[in-house]
């Protein structure tokens, strides 16, 4: 019997398991697939503070940013503290950007249009300016998730943290009202508490416990270019429209340019958002729009070839905030899901705070905004 059973071996589950093990708890992680095979495996690896409105998500992001840097010191996965550059096409948008930056209270530098070239020599001319966020970073999310689980297992005693892949949770075990284990394709597993870190599938897992969580898939495509010999792009560069798109509730297609280089050589190009269920069918118009926006931002990309594309499904909640905490409707069941497109960035803080809860400590941040039963009846559908 484990103290904690974590459902989901994505980056959020990995972080929950790591910090719970560090807090001295015995942890079993189960996943129906291999490690990092859900949305983590389709992520760009954003560790961003720049795109968050002031409030609980930004607080979470700032804590996470600090924790990622600590975790990266253990090595074993790429972590690039490259900084983010948000650019504005017009003076009006630039003003909004700088106002947001001032409100955020995050380390930043306002960059006038003529100085953008010093940050990104290949940016298109004529942009009004931007804001540079030195804390923005990128992590290789799949390897990071796998390494975190291994690090937890190695550092806090063998047998403390178990990973069981290919194990599908089919139901919950209870003692009275309290959840005390999971029923799986490979038999029952008992545990003191269960953490739902099933990402986009977190709603389905919650439903097995008879509670409703409105987590919906929000599809995104990423274009991957040929590997470049010399880095063309230094920062994570995106347009102001990205911030508005992230916060929007539209079902239809929204795209904005998000462009960045990677240590392996390719440039990653996003971002699209649309709510079309779990449909993996390639959308040529979406890929074309992503390419057009990237070329507009970086004309030097015109001759660079796209060699791959893939899509993933962000776990979207109606208020764009993740669900973190114990579910009063099913005591013993904790949720750590619904991080939409920010799961990679927010994973360490999520795991850290949840581990505090599990260990009976007072969490370092107020988790009230993330409580599982916050959704209105209407949102619960």
């Amino acid at each position, binding site marked *: 019997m484990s103290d904690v059973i974590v459902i989901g071996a994505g980056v959020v589950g990995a972080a929950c398991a790591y910090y719970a093990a560090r807090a001295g708890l015995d942890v079993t992680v189960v996943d129906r697939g291999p490690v*990092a095979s859900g949305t983590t495996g389709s992520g760009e690896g954003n560790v961003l503070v720049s795109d968050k409105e002031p409030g609980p998500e930004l607080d979470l992001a700032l804590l996470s940013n600090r924790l990622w840097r600590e975790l990266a010191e253990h090595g074993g996965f790429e972590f690039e503290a490259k900084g983010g550059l948000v650019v504005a096409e017009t003076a009006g948008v630039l003003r909004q950007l700088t106002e947001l930056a001032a409100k955020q209270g995050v380390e930043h530098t306002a960059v006038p249009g003529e100085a953008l070239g010093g940050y990104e020599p290949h940016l298109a001319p004529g942009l009004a300016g931007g804001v540079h966020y030195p804390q923005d970073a990128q992590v290789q999310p*799949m390897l990071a998730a796998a390494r975190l689980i291994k690090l937890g297992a190695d550092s806090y005693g063998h047998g403390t943290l178990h990973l069981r892949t290919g194990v599908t949770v089919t139901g919950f075990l209870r003692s009275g009202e309290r959840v005390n284990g999971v029923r799986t394709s490979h038999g029952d597993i008992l545990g003191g508490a269960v953490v739902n870190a099933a990402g986009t599938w977190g709603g389905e897992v919650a439903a097995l416990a008879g509670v409703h969580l409105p987590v919906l898939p929000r599809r995104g495509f990423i274009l991957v270019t040929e590997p470049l010999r010399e880095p063309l792009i230094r920062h994570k560069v995106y347009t102001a429209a990205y911030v508005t798109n992230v916060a929007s509730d539209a079902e239809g297609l929204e795209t904005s340019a998000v462009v960045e280089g990677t240590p392996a050589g390719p440039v990653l190009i996003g971002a699209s958002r649309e709510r079309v269920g779990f449909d993996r*069918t*390639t959308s*040529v118009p979406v890929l074309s729009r992503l*390419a*057009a926006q990237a070329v507009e931002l970086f004309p030097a990309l015109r001759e*660079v070839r796209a*060699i*791959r594309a893939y899509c993933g499904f962000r776990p979207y909640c109606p208020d764009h905030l993740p669900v973190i905490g114990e579910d009063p409707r099913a005591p013993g069941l904790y949720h750590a899901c619904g991080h939409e497109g920010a799961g990679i960035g927010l994973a360490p803080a999520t795991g850290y705070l949840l581990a505090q809860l599990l260990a009976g400590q007072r969490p370092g941040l107020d988790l009230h905004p993330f409580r599982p039963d916050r959704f209105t009846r209407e949102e619960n559908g």
Partner: protein
Amino acid sequence: MIHDLAVIGGGPAGVAGALTAALAGLRVVLLDGGPRLGGQYFRHAHGAEPEPRFARQSHALRQRAEVLLKHQVWAVSREDDAFTVHAHGTARAEVRARRVLIATGAHDRPLPFPGWDLPGVLTAGGAQALLKGERVPAGRRIAVAGTGPFLLPVAAGLARAGAEVAGVFEASGGLGLARHPVMALGKAGEAAGYAWALAARRVPYRRNHAVIAAHGEHELRAVTVARLDRDWNVLGTEELECDALAVGYGFVPQIELAVQLGCLTRQDADGTPVVDVDARQRTSVPGVWAAGEPTGVGGWELSETEGRIAGLALAGAGEVPGLLLRRRARLRAFAAALQGAYPVRPGWQSWLTPDTLICRCEEVPLARVREAQELGATDARSIKLLARPGMGWCQGRMCGYALACLAGEPQQPPRRPIAQPISLGALAEPPQKEH
């Protein structure tokens, strides 16, 4: 303009399918990435005539259908009532058609071994393409290795072209030259021709032998030839000097466009994912048809037969003649027998060392694959996510089979939303020409 049919691939299946449909009155467009029709089987050099039968079909096709060469198809999408074939030639081009016939052929299936990325090591199909399409032998002294009946024509062709073939190393042990399966298909003459070409030049043909390592600093200088047991574990080795190696362990059907469209796949006799088709070559997606190697590797004759059946069915020509159906059945049975006679045995994994590259593009050695597995990557896809094999230029075409074997699973249908590289500029702009 909307065509009745877009055919993707100008090999024997595509040309036969397109011609049959065009003869029945359909408005047909055929696209192929190469500069000439022919595909792999009927590849021919610039200015040369292909094999006469295929030449006649190609000539007739050009009279009756639009043929777009040097058009690489990178995606096919489905709208309400038609399909759009997205191609890239000198510019981005789109073709609209009510139905699509996927006849995209196959490519070599290599197995990794130490040194397999040295220049001078080519796939068997690569050596054949270089010889047939370009009139260039792969080297002066060439070893031919791998498994399957394709090694024979490759070796014979090289020998006839004047190259010294240092040996043909067939990893399987079941059948000798005299009982070679091409004999069974009433092709004793063809097989005898290969055998004669090799015997006349005293080319050794060794069963239960494989090339398990390639040596050289900047280019191939020598290979290690091993004698194998029936599971392909090494019994003994010797070194053989050569400046080229043509090596292949069967073929991988190119089915990514069918997968893009959502066509159901199945596992062929050897576990390879192929497009599932019905008796009329229809896939599970209405309006999408497939013929030739994408439905199962079986050679040019089966491909042509499937193409003709698809063409007739596409044209709504009533019953497909029993003659064609019986021929297809016979050729398919033969293909299945061949796959059974030349299986890839697991012992090849013992040829690898920890630093042997599995993925050539991303330079991922075996050790990193094993490390990813230890971290919880239990299938090929998650190994790719953790260690990057298959993330490079070729999108796993070269390492996909080997990686699946190392992961202990059958090869999965390839998900490649962009089937061919396309510049961001071209992808960004609306197509400049529409056919």
